[in-house]
Structure formats: structure tokens, C-alpha cells
């Protein structure tokens, strides 16, 4: 019996900043920026939120929807490029906060924006091998772009959690493949507050090459074509890239719209594909087929071929907030408040 998604939960911080507001501060043309990125606003974590708190809320939302003893979760993996500690795992904080401790394994993952999907793969392997009954995989970030850097328009916060298991599967993961190369398109050195990137180099040789090859590899492996899928979720650093990659691969706008959140909440990095997939699962029906492909700079892609099971009809999705509810519950802040919340302003005391 193959492993699949037993439950999922999402979390997006409540605050948003408009792309135009960021552009105003840096003397850029907000409308043009917004249009070129296809991003209108991005989520901003509150001053008391970080990757651990986002991961915990997402995990708790996943647990709300399913009757699982947290002690049956044998592994917690948190994928993020913004763990609150460089040394000291986020995963142990999450495990404690959901009551899964102490008999489990836990670790943090980092692979730019794809660490969350890699965590799903690890959980699948552990579940399939019988090492654990359930695994909890989370992708969450409170990513930062340097003030004034193009990344600042999109780097945002959010996350989603997946409970992987064999029993009570609401969406079967039929197959997963990855595609990895050493491509230095985006990085953050030890001790640096903000990441650096290769500008336009992050496009063709990085994002597009990895996603396209990984997606093709998956479809070849399972013998599918784009039209076999009801939904497609691609990593979404902005609103434009996923639309273009979909077009190149032969997917339609309709297939990707449900899982495309970046225009409203920005790039949630490790949370991006997990959140996009969660938005699809919020509306999916039994038999629906989903393809989800992440991308992490550095660089790699993980692709998943998923079939929604009949079990989803009995699954109480309403027990946790839907992604759209989280997207729509927002409060706009201006750049000054944003800068304060993100600790871009330091107090003089």
C-alpha cells in the first residue's frame, strides 16, 4: 500500500504589504513592478511570528482535521530557509508543541524553497518502509529580501504541514521524483542576514531548467501527460514564472489558477508549493489528479503525482482554516510598520 496525505494544514500570517508601497519607498514604479512580477501584495509575519510559530500553526491545523494521536507521529521534518536558530532545530519545537515528543525523530531541512517538499519525500520513504506510522512534513518560511533588493517585493511568510501515512489517506502520492544539480542561483552565507542571488541567472538555468526537467521526468515515469491532471502546482517565486513554466510544459491557466497564491501573498519560499497544494486539496474531489513541482535554489526540484481518494469526502476540511480563508483574512501595513515587524529597524536601547 502506498503512502499518501492523511491530513494537511495551512497557515499564513495576517499582515500584508502592497507591492506599490514597497516601490514607493525605493522610488520605483509600483504598478510596473506589480505587473512584471504579477504580485500585488505579500504576507508579512507579525513581530512575534517566525518559522517555528508558522510551522506549529500549520501542524495544529492539520491535526485538527484528523483523529490521530500525536504520539503516533514518528518523524517531524521542517523545511525552511529561515529557521529561527541556525543551530537548534525548529522541528523539536514543533514536535513539543503538537505533543508528539519524545519518541520520534526530528530534523530541520534547508534547500531554499524546496525543503518542505523534500520533507514530504522523506516521510513517504519512512512510512513506506514501515519505520514510522505517520510522518509530519512542513514547509514554512519567513523569508527576507534585503531592503531595496528586487526580492523584497515578494519574499513573504507562510507554511503548510502534511501528515503522511498509509491509513486514512485522502490523497495518494502515486510517485515522486527529483532533479538536482549544483546551480548557485541564490544563496545566503553563514552569518549573513539577507540572501544574495544571481539576478536573471535565477531564471532559465535555475527555475525553468529544473522544474521543466523534473516535471517531464515525472510524467515520463508514470506515463502521464499534462491533460491528465485536474490541477498543477508549480513553485511560484512570483506570479509570472509558474504561468510561463505551465505554458512551456503544456498546462493551461485553469489547471494552475487554484494553486497559484503568490499574487496575493508573495513567495512563501518553503511554504509555496505546500500552500499551493493545500489550496488545491481544499477544493479537490475524489479522483482528481494533481501534479505538484517545487523548486529550490542551489538547485533542485521535487515533483509529485497525486490522486485524490474517496476518503476526502469523509475528511472534515472545515475543522481547519482553508487557504483562501487565510489569504482573505488580512490587514495591510505600511512600509514603516513592515520594517519594524521585520526588524529592519533596530531599537536604540
Amino acid at each position, binding site marked *: 500500500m502506498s503512502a499518501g496525505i492523511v491530513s494537511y494544514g495551512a497557515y499564513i500570517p495576517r499582515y500584508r504589504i502592497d507591492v506599490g508601497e514597497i516601490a514607493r519607498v525605493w522610488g520605483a514604479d509600483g504598478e510596473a513592478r506589480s505587473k512584471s512580477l504579477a504580485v500585488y501584495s505579500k504576507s508579512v509575519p507579525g*513581530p*512575534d511570528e517566525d518559522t*517555528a510559530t508558522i510551522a506549529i500553526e500549520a501542524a495544529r491545523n492539520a491535526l485538527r482535521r484528523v483523529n490521530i494521536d500525536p504520539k503516533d507521529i514518528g518523524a517531524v521534518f521542517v523545511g525552511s530557509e529561515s529557521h529561527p536558530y541556525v543551530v537548534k532545530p525548529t522541528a523539536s519545537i514543533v514536535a513539543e508543541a503538537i505533543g508528539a515528543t519524545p519518541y520520534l525523530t526530528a530534523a530541520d531541512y534547508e534547500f531554499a524553497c524546496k525543503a518542505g517538499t523534500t520533507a514530504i519525500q522523506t516521510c513517504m520513504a519512512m512510512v513506506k518502509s514501515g519505520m514510522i506510522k505517520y510522518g509530519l512534513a512542513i514547509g514554512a518560511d519567513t523569508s527576507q529580501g534585503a531592503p531595496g533588493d528586487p526580492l523584497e517585493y515578494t519574499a513573504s511568510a507562510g507554511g503548510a504541514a502534511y501528515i503522511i501515512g498509509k491509513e486514512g489517506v485522502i490523497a495518494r502520492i502515486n510517485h515522486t521524483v527529483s532533479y538536482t544539480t549544483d546551480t548557485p542561483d541564490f544563496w545566503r552565507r553563514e552569518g549573513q542576514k539577507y540572501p544574495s542571488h544571481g539576478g536573471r541567472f535565477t531564471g532559465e538555468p535555475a527555475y525553468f531548467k529544473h522544474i521543466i526537467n523534473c516535471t517531464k521526468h515525472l510524467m515520463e515515469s508514470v506515463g502521464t501527460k499534462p491533460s491528465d491532471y485536474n490541477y498543477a502546482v508549480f513553485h511560484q517565486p512570483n506570479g509570472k514564472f509558474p504561468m510561463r513554466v505551465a505554458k512551456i510544459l503544456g498546462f493551461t491557466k485553469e489547471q494552475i489558477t487554484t494553486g497559484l497564491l503568490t499574487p496575493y501573498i508573495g513567495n512563501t519560499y518553503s511554504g509555496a508549493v505546500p500552500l499551493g497544494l493545500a489550496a488545491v486539496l481544499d477544493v479537490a474531489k475524489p479522483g482528481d489528479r494533481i501534479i505538484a513541482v517545487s523548486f529550490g535554489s542551489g538547485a533542485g526540484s521535487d515533483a509529485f503525482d497525486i490522486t485524490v481518494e474517496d476518503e476526502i469526502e469523509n475528511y472534515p476540511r472545515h475543522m481547519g482554516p482553508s487557504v483562501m480563508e487565510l489569504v482573505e483574512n488580512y490587514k495591510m501595513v505600511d512600509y514603516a510598520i513592515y520594517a519594524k515587524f521585520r526588524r529592519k529597524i533596530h531599537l536604540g536601547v
Partner: protein
Amino acid sequence: MAIPRFWRHIGSRYNLVGTKCKVCGKVYFPPRDVCPVCHRKSLGSMERVKLSGSGKIYSYTVIHTPQKDFEMQTPYVMAIVELDEGPRVTAQIVDCDPSEVHIGMRVRAVLRRIGEDGEGGIIYYGYKFVPERTSAKGAQGHLSVK
């Protein structure tokens, strides 16, 4: 705060673990070793229980002159929350504009950063509460797909 002083309360701070007196059934938060109702009879009968985290606001205030760790959040709402199991707990109310808060407001517990031991020290996580929203009520509006 010294590390062990934070660490030993992680159960209560993350998961609202309190105690229930097995003699009279009353629930307490934070945990107590002696039941103020049953006194000596309760010794050895105080059982750890995880509280649901749902409750309503009994009283509140909006702090304008903050503690050091809360300067970035000022003004912020603090409240005494009456949990559904009975005990009352003092906590910050977040994701809530000061103008929204009122006595009787339904809230639920979330986990947030409470403070930190300086920029290089450990981070203190703990319970705070958010308004229990049934829908996107309280939001500024709906973003339509452009």
C-alpha cells in the same frame, strides 16, 4: 530569564498544560500541587491536563507603555482569558485590533514568540490568543484575482 526556568514550563507554555484535582474536579492553570478547595485531600491527586485553549475574554487592557520585549508590538492587547475548562489565564491577544477587543469575545490559543534572551540568546515561545474567527470576518476585504 535563565534557560532552565523557561524550559521547565515548556509543557504549560506551549500546550496549556494545567492540573485537575481528582477530588473535586476543579481545573487549574498554571499547574498547582495543592488544590485550594480540597487542600490536604488533594495531595497526590493533582493530575496534569492539557487545556483546549478556547475561551472568552474576562477583562482586557491595551498596553501603551510596554515591557522591553514588547516594544515592537506596542500598543498591544493583554487580557485575562477565561478558558472553557474554568481557569483564567493572563495572555496577549494578537491578530486583533485594540478597537475589536471586548469582554466576552471568543478567543483561541496560538503559539507565538513571547520574548528572547537578547539577539544571541534563546527564544521564548508560549501561548497567546487570537480572536476565534468563523470566516474572514475582521479582514479588510477580498482581493480579487486580477
